[in-house]
């Protein structure tokens, strides 16, 4: 599980956007101009492509138990075979689908909750802000993995939906905190005063005036939450709280560990899925960090030393 360092974020005054097209345009331009973001996007694109093309890329049926057990990597089996005689490379390729799906779904869910709680705390202010902020901090500090494990064990339902739900419930707080501080810095800006003076309803102001100006932070939070989801799902599946018959990288690691792959001399069975988890996570982390740099120009790398 990645460490996420929680500091009071520096209140970055977001550039106020003048037109709707400007938001996405600026975003796309700064994304491709930033080298970390580009690397992250390429990695992410690679896995997305792999997920779509899995049946073409994978040489065998990932579930078929048709081969000898624990074969070493060779030309016919790029990464060898499992303890029950499945082709590891085919499993790896097909697992991209579920792992990616969990990351995106849980990332999206967690971001949604962060936005709702973080922005409404900042916008409503007063007692509401205090209560919601406290609520966020409580979730931030609770050790989430034991909580996830308990809920997972109770539910005894090892389905995908449960896994995603558990990750969402434990993963929204970090983003909510960041969003709250940015929304606070926006609250008294002139264009919001103007909207209030026009007599717009709060919901309208939040959705059409506040949120568009927070797009880059929201996207950053989405990738941060997706990173958390990748690692949390891998951890839960590794200790056997996923669906053991499903194909995903964490489940592969679970079976590798259960078969003592390292001691049995099949390191590829352990290395490959872990490397994929790390690479997908790195893709999200790079994009997330790039957004920090985009939002806060002071952090950008300097070319020459002064």
């Amino acid at each position, binding site marked *: 599980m*990645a460490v996420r*360092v929680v500091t009071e974020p520096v209140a970055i005054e977001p550039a106020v956007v003048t037109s709707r097209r400007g938001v996405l345009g600026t975003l796309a331009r700064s994304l491709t101009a930033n080298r970390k973001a580009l690397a992250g996007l390429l990695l992410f694109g690679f896995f997305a492509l792999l997920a779509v093309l899995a049946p073409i890329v994978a040489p065998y049926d990932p579930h078929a138990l048709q081969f000898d057990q624990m074969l070493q990597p060779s030309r016919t089996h790029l990464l060898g075979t499992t303890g029950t005689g499945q082709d590891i490379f085919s499993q790896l390729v097909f697992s991209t689908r579920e792992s990616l799906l969990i990351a995106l779904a849980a990332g999206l869910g967690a971001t949604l909750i962060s936005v709702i709680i973080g922005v409404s705390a900042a916008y409503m202010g007063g007692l509401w802000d205090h209560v919601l902020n406290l609520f966020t901090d*409580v979730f931030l500090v*609770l050790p989430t*993995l*034991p909580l996830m494990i308990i809920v997972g064990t109770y539910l005894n339902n090892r389905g995908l939906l449960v896994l995603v739900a558990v990750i969402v419930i434990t993963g929204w707080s970090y983003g909510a905190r960041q969003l709250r501080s940015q929304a606070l810095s926006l609250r008294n800006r002139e264009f919001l005063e103007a909207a209030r003076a026009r007599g717009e309803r709060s919901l309208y102001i939040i959705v059409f005036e506040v949120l568009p100006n927070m797009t880059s932070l929201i996207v950053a939070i989405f990738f941060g939450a997706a990173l958390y989801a990748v690692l949390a799902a891998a*951890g839960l599946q590794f200790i056997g709280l996923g669906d053991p018959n499903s194909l995903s990288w964490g489940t592969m690691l679970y079976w590798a560990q259960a078969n003592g792959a390292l001691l049995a001399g099949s390191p590829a069975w352990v290395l490959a899925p872990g490397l994929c988890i790390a690479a997908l996570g790195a893709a999200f982390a790079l994009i997330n960090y790039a957004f920090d740099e985009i939002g806060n120009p002071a952090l950008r790398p300097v070319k020459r030393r002064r």
Partner: protein
Amino acid sequence: MSYLIRRLEFFFITLWAALTINFILPRIMPGNPAQAMIVRFHGRVSPETVKAIEVAFGLKSNESVIQQYFEYLRNTFTGNFGTSVTFFPVPVGDIIKQGLPWTLGLVGMATVIAFILGTLLGMLSAWRRGGFFDAILPPVFIVISAFPYFWLGLLVLLLFALTLGWFPLGFAYDLTDSINLSWSFAGQVIWHGFLPALTIVVTSIGGWILTMRNTMITTLAEDYVKMARAKGLSPIRIMFMYAGRNAILPNLTGFAMSLGFVISGAILVEIVFNYPGLGFTLLQAVHSEDYALMQTLFLMLTVAVLVAVLAADLLTALLDPRTREQG
């Protein structure tokens, strides 16, 4: 003082939240864990234990939920956590007492090392903006922070224990030995703890480096740093006593608040290394669906994190006069 009051409020509310989550979970979850447990125990369990299970899982239907809640709170504060299924008939409290020192020692040491090392490296990276460290460290640690703790643990195990044979494969000391206070035993503990600690340090240090770097970049632009430069103070002095010193407090707060994440990762590391701490116990509890043990573990880990957060808050209050003057 209002800073301290707010932090104490946070401490107690979070503690209460953890206690209440523990109380509510078994009552809202589908299925009936208590019934399942009693069935499993059939015939070899004392009436008191049945009663304790019933209380813990809310089976005493003749009592109201409120009554059950207070009975649960009283049991928790008097250290009556019930009986473990995994290690039947050992009380849950005793199992926790065995595992807690190992986890606290491992995670505590690794976290302190990561914090000190990471803060120093972050300072250096911000100071030499665009230099070697600054070009290499951030991207490297962004990528490493995306590694699953347990996978890095497996990797380290493969390399240093299996292939090179420098370190043992797991556990906290030689199994032929028993716990005692001798130098050779202390050596064993360090030798066995090295790889798990290394894993935790490597995966968590990136966070400290990046935050410290980013906060320090902000403080380096402050007027008091310009003033210090203008006075002709030595760069080392400016780096540590002016820019670094002011950047360290946000890092300390962040340090405390993210301990929950570190603990979560450390649990998995313990599982990989068969380290006899709470994480490893948690895995055993999961395998035998030992709810009483699981929930107490969650509570204990939460309390450990909260105490650390409170300690960091007190330290902040001590070091930062602004928190003392006004909230």
